[in-house]
């Protein structure tokens, strides 16, 4: 279950349908003396739902930012369907849907306007854009709040809006960063239900420190500790031990 540092971790799961392939090779990111991601190699197969786990500060969000191209790596490389976010950011963004934490949306826009912008920024226009916005509103059950300001919505609805903007252009790779963070149990279940419904249609990287969420929504899990990959494999196996929290403490090494 535990893989040595810097080596290819786990064999990719079988393809379950559409999706993008994500490949990190010796990926490293430093912030001054701090190594946030340390020589990480990991392959995520098309259609795979991967839970990216770890304690706060383990390097999960940094890894996600490296895949999305928001950060540049200090060493190594990451490829999405063979395209590097450093050398070909447009190709990566075309394949990418990114859902950040709840607060990272525009409170000053109405839901429909925000979704129109999200679609337009991904090259949807005219009737195609309106169709995509309507379909997304229906899919994420946002009809009631479509005309309301995003900032006035409950956190649960805000997270649904955030998920909706990421799925609007039907991307083959979806990266979701702590989607249930700060939500009450009912809202958490709402968001999980949406993710459950969408799972398997595309490659999903779910960044979370909620073990039950990872068990529920992902078939494979990768655990980071201090920027290093300490475990990778089927979620049931990775989190199946007597003390799965030991992984968060980096004790699996």
């Amino acid at each position, binding site marked *: 279950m535990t893989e040595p540092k810097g080596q290819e971790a786990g064999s990719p799961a079988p393809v379950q349908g559409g999706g993008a392939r994500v490949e990190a090779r010796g990926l490293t990111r430093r912030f001054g003396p701090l190594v946030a991601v340390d020589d990480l190699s990991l392959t995520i197969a098309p259609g795979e739902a991967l839970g990216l786990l770890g304690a706060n500060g383990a390097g999960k969000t940094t890894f996600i930012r490296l895949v999305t191209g928001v950060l540049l790596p200090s060493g190594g490389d990451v490829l999405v369907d063979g395209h590097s976010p450093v050398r070909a950011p447009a190709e990566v963004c075309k394949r990418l849907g*990114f859902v950040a934490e709840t607060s*990272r*949306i*525009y409170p000053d826009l109405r839901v429909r306007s925000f979704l129109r912008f999200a679609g337009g920024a*991904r090259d949807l226009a005219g009737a195609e854009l309106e169709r995509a916005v309507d379909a997304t509103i229906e899919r994420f059950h946002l009809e009631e709040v479509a005309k309301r300001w995003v900032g006035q919505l409950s956190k649960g609805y805000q997270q649904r809006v955030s998920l909706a903007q990421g799925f609007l252009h039907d991307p083959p790779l979806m990266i979701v960063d702590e989607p249930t963070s700060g939500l009450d149990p009912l809202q958490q279940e709402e968001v999980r239900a949406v993710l459950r419904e969408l799972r398997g249609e595309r490659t999903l990287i779910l960044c979370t420190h909620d073990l039950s969420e990872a068990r529920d929504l992902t078939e494979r899990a990768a655990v980071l500790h201090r920027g290093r990959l300490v475990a990778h494999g089927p979620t049931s196996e990775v989190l199946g031990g007597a003390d799965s929290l030991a992984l968060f403490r980096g004790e699996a090494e």
Partner: protein
Amino acid sequence: MIRFLALVRKELLVLFASPLAYIVLALVVLVAGLLFFDHLRAYNQILFLFQTSTMGGFESGTIPDHVNLRETVFFPVMENLGFILIGLIPMITMRVFAEERSRGTDEILLTTRLSPGQIVAGKFLVTYGFVVLAMLASFVYPAMAILQGGIGVQHLSSVFFGLSLLAISLASIGLVCSAFTSSQFMAVVASWALCFVLWDWSWLTPFLRDAESLARFVDAISIHPRYSVFAEGVVRLEDLIYFLGVCLVSYALARFALDWRRVAG
């Protein structure tokens, strides 16, 4: 182009969803109006004094050539308004990039298909549009009066063009400051400081007689002398190049700030 238009639309919606835009717009109109009416009042008093008493060697009822709407009202109002813009325009530009960073929505932008160049260009364009609109609103009272006071449409257009270029340049400086920080407070203070510092160095040139090239340099980087030329009704290529240069350098720096964030985190 679709992406760019989507961004421009979003920026407009966000800008006009904020009360700050209306407050700044109202302040610009209010300040311009107050300045205008104050100078107009002073002009009327001077006229009255010249008409009713002997002043400065002029006989009663004789009004000197330099006492006219153009010299006594229009130019001073434009001069003062230009300086006041240093205080007002950074209040609009402070949030443009800094707010995106503090909210984390810049990550949403960067993961769409918008390139960093398009993001910067879209934000600059919308801000430029807003400040030109604000200048248009502030220009209505003086323009209406001055048109009746004998100044030509061509001259008036030149003054408005200069005022707009000044506002755009100040906005460019403010946008750069906003692009380098996630704090709106830092952005507005840095913008005020930078605009103030760049406003006018011409007072320094008499002290730099021994360093002619330095004197030429400090004179060349000053915003105010360039603006004053437009106020005289003269449009010079070198001034246009100066204002265009401020915009281009600002665009490049803001673009660099976005790229730098990917490196520095």
